[in-house]
């Protein structure tokens, strides 16, 4: 009995971690700038490849993973300073621009490094509860998801960067008038979002087969979580991931992965009919 319960909890933790990690970067960028980064999947892919190549050159896995996140973050800042900043008053066009970039990067990778790359194995072995075997690394992923959210909470609620960021979200013109360098805040936020996407890729790198188009495996979940969560990462993404995680775990166990994904999507379409601004919009309105 305990083994079954543990198995359910483990599967939920697995889905929850996947939703949180894949959505965090997208949610930060959306929350700060109202922009949906359709190149999100390519930042994840960047994190994956940097990690794998790092490990294959003899780096320890955690350091390679940090490098993966860092690389994605730096590319994100460069992209913001060259392309995205021109499009802040045209959110729909910024989606299209990032889509163009995503297309260029994916196809460019197919041309330059080909369609396959040797992977690295999942570390940290496994453990047994009752008659079931579980991967230890998946628990680390859950811990990482919790840490990412805790880190974001500290960053946005306890640091001066967080105060300036929140001021910029609330009223960019007023913030600028009071001396906040909003372009820097935007660049930093885009960088943080990209780095979190890279981190997601880095963390999942050991568990996946490498192909340049693998970003797509993350983005449906990421988008869906952000739509349900709304524009506030701290208030929205976690409850959204819990709700979607429960739906997904139940459907996965009952009918398999694809039905899980489709069921989640249908749940989202039903949710936005009732909560068009997502969970965080609803919470914000209730607390007013």
């Amino acid at each position, binding site marked *: 009995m305990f083994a079954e319960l543990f198995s359910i909890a483990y599967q939920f933790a697995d889905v929850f971690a996947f939703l949180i990690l894949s959505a965090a970067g997208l949610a930060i960028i959306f929350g700060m700038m109202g922009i949906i980064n359709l190149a999100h999947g390519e930042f994840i892919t960047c994190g994956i490849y940097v990690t794998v190549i790092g490990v294959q050159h003899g780096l320890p896995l955690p350091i390679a993973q940090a490098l993966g996140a860092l690389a994605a973050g730096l590319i994100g800042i460069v992209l913001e300073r060259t392309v995205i900043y021109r499009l802040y008053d045209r959110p*729909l066009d910024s*989606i299209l621009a990032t*889509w163009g970039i995503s297309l260029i990067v994916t196809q460019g990778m197919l041309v330059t490094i080909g369609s396959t790359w040797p992977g690295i194995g999942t570390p940290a072995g496994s453990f047994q509860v009752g008659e079931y075997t579980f991967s230890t690394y998946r628990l680390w992923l859950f811990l990482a998801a919790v840490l990412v959210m805790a880190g974001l909470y500290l960053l946005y609620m306890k640091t001066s960067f967080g105060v300036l960021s929140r001021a910029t979200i609330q009223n960019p013109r007023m913030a600028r008038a009071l001396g906040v360098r909003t372009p820097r805040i935007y660049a930093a936020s885009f960088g943080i979002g990209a780095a979190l996407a890279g981190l997601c890729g880095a963390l999942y790198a050991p568990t996946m087969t490498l192909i340049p188009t693998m970003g797509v495996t993350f983005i449906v979940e990421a988008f869906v979580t952000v739509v349900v969560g709304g524009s506030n990462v701290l208030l929205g993404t976690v409850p959204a991931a819990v709700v979607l995680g429960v739906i997904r775990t139940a459907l996965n166990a009952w009918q398999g992965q694809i039905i899980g994904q489709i069921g989640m999507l249908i749940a989202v379409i039903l949710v*936005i009919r009732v909560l068009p601004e997502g969970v965080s919009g609803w919470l914000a309105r209730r607390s007013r």
Partner: protein
Amino acid sequence: MLSSLRHLNGPQTMGNGPAFWSGFAVLVVAALAYPLGFDPYDVGNAAYFLIWVFAALGLSLMWGYTGILSFGQMAFFGAAGYSYGVISINLDATGGLTLLSFATAVAVSALFAAVLGYFMIYGRVGGVYFGIVTFATTLALAAFMGQTAGPEWRIGSARFNGFNGMGGMPPLELPWFGGPVLLEGTVLYYAVLLLLLAVYLGLRVLVNGRFGNVLVAIREDPLRAELLGYDVRRYQLAVFVIGSALAGVSGALYTAWGQFITPATMGLPSAALPIIWVAFSGRGDLTATLLGTFMLLLGFQALTVYSQQYALILMGLLLLVTVLFVPAGFVAGFGRWLQGRARRLAARGA
């Protein structure tokens, strides 16, 4: 009926004068004469290009005229394509039944759009969210169809075949005196051309009439349109259904043309293509969308012969450049330049 023809010209379309319509007539005659001088293979290929234009016109109506950016054109394309397969295979369709399958397939995609659109539009989901939800729906549908490989995934005698796609549906046939006529090669070209002409002119009448004026009012300022007493959601839903059904027309025609449809048509990068055509051409004008889409398809195929990846990289670059430097679109920009020149010439002559 005839009185609505005066809406062929109006403020919502570029090209309203005699010069435009003369050029239009020349183009139509050239298109009608085209099969005479060319290889049937080339004619079939031209029909293939025309097939895609419906989806682009639908997107132009939604995005350019009403301001709803749907990333879901290929989802409706695929829904209609698979529906055509399922229906025509199960009916073992010939003659008029293939046309019935076609119409039903388009109706299925329209119904799908109505259901999805109801939840989004009546949930007041707009702008960016609308894009993401349609995008996620498209990708999920592609993933779903991709895993329908086993023999248990079937409707009647039509098997989905997972990633390899569904094949073996009959081509379209036109019932005619003395036996049905198979729509392929030159005949298909003419059929698609006439249908496209009808849809293009119909859309012109639609956008220049009262309905179109409301759409443009909604695009410019939904709140103001609502305060003026229009039920914005009804108009948006109607446009979403029409625009998506046009993608369905493309999908059903494509499936009947190649007797084949795969999940990859709905996935990435395919889902980005309609957006690129329409953005590059100029989403705010039907004529620009029609011409630009056709040109891009032609160029894309010419490049794909050498390398599909490079062709797609170029498409991505084109999208990026359009968004950054020519947001109104290249073809529409060129059209506006032509119009300005003509006006200046006329002013000088007078």
